[in-house]
């Protein structure tokens, strides 16, 4: 592994300053489950590593505020997957967080890191995108928020300015707000990267929002007009609607799957998560 300078700032301001000064030569370290692989393989050779884990202002807390769950920058996938409020209010996020890697990986990987890493196959991103989660960004010019879908600009590209970092994720959640389900296709059942993943979230008015991973460089998000979750929709009508709705997916062929398979799985998975989301909506409303 190439040499680098390692900083473990304790304050947000110091971290922000470092990041601003070093620009693209710096990399942020949170859980490190992706970064360390890239460092070891020499794919990334930063001059500076800024470890966020000692920053007092960055929390690992998961808290419920009015109609939203706030997940701190240092909250791990294990914590997200097992958190009572998340299981109650947005089980889809717990499903997605629990699908990431192994126990060992989930004990280190953070939810915010999963977003900032901006891998097209990230499992939690479809849930956050479909449920309208917002990223809380802190930086030299203060605090701002931005929807998760807008933060991710492309494969491994995010919309943070120099010196900015993600402090928390705010997930809208509350009774009657929406019901969501997560699903994915993998090559094997144990620890794997998704060939395609998706979250379907249905809001109180019956509008279904689908967010897919691994079918485009960015999360692919589409919304229907309320037809899909309607009780009386026939299967051929649903198929036809989905064909139109998902026609913008642009999957690629790679070592994990062909574009054709990914494209076919978009619809299969969408149908399945839609059905689960509809059931969730019927049984409890909200995210239950």
């Amino acid at each position: 592994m190439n040499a680098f300078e390692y900083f473990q700032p304790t304050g947000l301001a110091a971290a922000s300053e470092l990041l601003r000064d070093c620009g693209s030569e710096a990399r942020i370290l949170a859980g490190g489950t992706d970064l360390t692989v890239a460092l070891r393989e020499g794919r990334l050779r930063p001059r500076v590593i800024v470890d966020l884990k000692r920053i007092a202002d960055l929390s690992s807390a998961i808290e419920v505020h009015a109609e939203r769950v706030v997940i701190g920058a240092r909250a791990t996938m294990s914590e997200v997957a097992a958190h009572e409020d998340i299981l109650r209010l947005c089980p889809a996020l717990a499903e997605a967080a629990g699908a990431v890697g192994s126990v060992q990986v989930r004990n280190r990987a953070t939810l915010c890191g999963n977003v900032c890493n901006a891998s097209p196959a990230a499992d939690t991103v479809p849930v956050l995108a479909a449920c309208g989660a917002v990223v809380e960004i802190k930086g030299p010019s203060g605090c701002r928020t931005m929807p998760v879908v807008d933060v991710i600009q492309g494969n491994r590209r995010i919309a943070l300015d120099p010196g900015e970092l993600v402090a928390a994720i705010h997930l809208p959640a509350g009774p009657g707000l929406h019901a969501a389900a997560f699903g994915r296709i993998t090559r094997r059942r144990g620890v794997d990267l998704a060939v395609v993943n998706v979250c379907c979230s249905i809001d109180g008015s019956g509008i279904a929002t689908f967010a897919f991973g691994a079918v485009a460089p960015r999360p692919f998000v589409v919304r229907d007009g309320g037809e899909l979750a309607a009780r009386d929709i026939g299967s051929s009508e649903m198929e036809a609607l989905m064909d139109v709705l998902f026609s913008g997916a642009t999957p690629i062929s790679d070592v994990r799957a062909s574009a054709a398979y990914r494209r076919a799985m978009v619809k299969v998975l969408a149908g399945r998560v839609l059905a689960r989301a509809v059931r969730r909506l019927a049984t409890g409303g909200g995210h239950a």
Partner: protein
Amino acid sequence: MPEWCSMDLTVNGEPRTIRVRPNEILLDVLRDRLGLRGPKECCAVGECGACTVKVDGKTVNSCLMLAVEAREANVVTIEAAAGSGSMTRLQEAFLEHGAVQCGFCIPGMLMSAQALLDRDPDPDDDAIREALSGNLCRCAGYYRMFEAVRAAARPVPPPDAPAPVPAADRAAAATDSRRGEDLRRNRRVAVGTSVKRFGGPERVRGTQRFLADISLPGLLHVKLVKTDAARARIVSIDVEAAKGAPGVVDVITAQDLGNPVPRFGPVFDDRPVLADGEVKYHGEPVAAVVAETKEQAAQAAELVKVELERLPAVASVAQALAPDAPLVQDASLRQGDPLARTNVLKERSYGWGDVDAARADLVVENTYTFPMVTHFAIEPHGFMAKWEEGRLTLWSPVQHPFLLQKVMAKLFGLPLTEVRVIAPDPGGGFGGKQNPKFEPLVAMLAMRTGRPCRLVLTLDETFQAVRRAATEIRVRTGFSREGDILFQDIKSDFLLGAYADIGERVMTKASYLGVGPYRVPNARIRARALLSNTVPSCAFRGFGTPQMNWAVESNIDAGARRLGIDGFRIRLRNLADKGDEIVRGDVPADGHWPQSLKLAADAIGWNEPLAPGRGRGIAVGIKSGATTGLSNSTVRLLADGSAILYAGTSDMGQGARTIFAQLVSDALGVPLSRVSVVMGDTSVVPFDLQTSASRSTVFMGTAISRACADIHAQLREMAVEIKGVDPDQVRIHDGIVAIGPDEVSIPEFVKANLRQWNGELVGNGRMRKPHMEDHPLGGSAAFYEFNCTAFEAEVDEKTGEITIHKHILVGDVGKALNPVQVEAQDEGAAIMGLGHTLMEHMVLDQEGRIRNLGAIDYRIPTSRDLPGTMQALMVENGDGPGPYGSKGVSEGGLLCTAPALAAAVTAATGVEFQSLPLTPERVWLKLNETEIPGSGPVGRPVGMDRKQGPT
């Protein structure tokens, strides 16, 4: 922050202050700085879990954590798992339930399993499978681990409640009741019981020393320099920058090796120590860097500049056989070989009867492909050498220390006495740690530098060092309408790599038994071994048989479907029973194979109603056991009644050490606790050919039994001399010396009498199966390894995902000397078979380069990928050539996994498969192909020799 920083942390309960550099990995610091070698390195990407440790109460992959991140943290490794106790309940349960095989994954596995129990004291099956899914075990002792976790989770029963009986004890109790008479006479019986694994305690405590765990003073580290070409002319290699890099001691290329560049190999001396003028496969090293530290060697290797002229590569059967194909090997290397100007390394043909004259009612022809797969032992390959005063010492976790000794002595012109091979227990071998790979290179570096050198490959590099031959096998099978197999006409192409290694023998041995365990009146087998610009294929569990069985068994099913006969009945109809000829003129069937077939069919519930959407499949396979070779053993019975046995076998997880100790224990009446086993050092143990072809129980086991018989003869001599009795009054058997009516155990007899003789009794024994000049394999099979596998499975037709509900395997084992070890071998092989059936394949790009190097995109089964239930059954008729009628058993479980599972999937879906692996995508693709309007019924018979074929 400065380059070095000092930090405090707690490791295994002790406060430590250490200095680390920011770019050091926690795993390296634990292993190299703190000497905690329990955590292991394999994948380096957080997939295998071998490096699992606990940091602040949570399990993490220490390969994915910078050491500086552990500042002020509390780190616990396997070494401290038991606290002040000698072992945790879980560690004990792992041993009791036979969960430990090679042991390399075990430290990490135990960390994960204990963490599960700590957060969930009563986990269900799903929770256990999920919790262990971040820890890969290639021996695949998963089901035993699940059992061990459940056992350790169970609260300690109150004193008067009957305690749950672990599998090992259950098996032992069954055997004990069979041998009740012996036990009443207070005689010790080890054979046939599931005694705990020798070497087990070290493995669960993390103290077993694998190659990478051995320290030598002054050790230098080697890094290979590779290119990203599958084939290219080496224009130039500039090593100057690398030579000047910090810590670098030496950098070599082929030019430093002399002219011609030395070449070696187990059969053909075709592999150069470093790429010679041309890179011939993706990953072939062109240079090697030696430095003071691993990190320095790796950094300097990046500074070596290689200029290449890329050339078209031969990477498939079609490319190898194309009329204008470039030659993979220079014809000058193949002097006198009429095929030297082709990419065909060898052609073989076998057969009997007259295929062309056979009158079949139905002929089915298909071509089946089997992909390149790699061994993926969790211990990456490692090599270490020391050159001192004209003597070469090599450390290599190989399956054949003596063959390595021979190859190295020849290569360096040294007498055998000056080449010592120390073979630490391999952390999984599976054939990949057979035949030399980088030992010559590392030895040369030790000679050049005058210091010991070590090369430990990364997992990616092991993919570029070992693999199974890919195959394309065309099978034409003729059937009678009643389902008799009338002929088999087989053309098999084995795609070897750029150098032959043992690949030609793989093709030969598998093709020779190509028709399988059947009575086939007419057979024609034409087989070729092809060279290509791919990683040299080598020995791999099953030795070509899984590839051959995939084709031949699948084709039998294809015919059976068209005849309206099920997979069980067509096999029962054609399967050879004991004494029936299979290959004409060779050793006939050596087991009651229909018994195994029926047992498997019963266990899978072949004739029972099936839930909708599910299908069943069944298949059989045989592999030829070892055909020739010599195994020697020495057994020493010491004056205090303890025994030491010496064997050149390698214990790579199969448990040879345990079996051998059991044999000695029973033969000499020495308790197992007083038997020690010495292996793995050519300067200490007598010659053994190798640990391969499931030979050790039969060959070395026989040698050991004979060494014990030699001691028996000496005991008789002693008894006659010391007691003054006639020889015919002395009977020695089963650990007893009987003189007239008086019986005494051998150890007691020795303790009482040996002092008059001085010293100890040393017995020697050997088993030799001589070379047979006129046999196509150089010798007949010492035994056949027979297996029957059956599945019940269903398919998600929308996604192509296969769910396996039941997986049954039956081995014809002769006699299980240690039932739990036999089951573990069978299950492990079966799960490895699931790997190549469901998910494993090396993916090549257009230029022949491997696209899925490493653990992220080459998938092997995890604990979550296993069938709902798996049952490893055995037939024990005591009809093998080994001790107590045993046969070899370590490959059977994967011989016919693929055809059996494919048959179940076909039964469930109606589509047939000719290519592996059956990934969700490929199954989906096949399901959709047949939905194309206008396409006929699944598959198609290629011809009917008579007018009225069955409909």
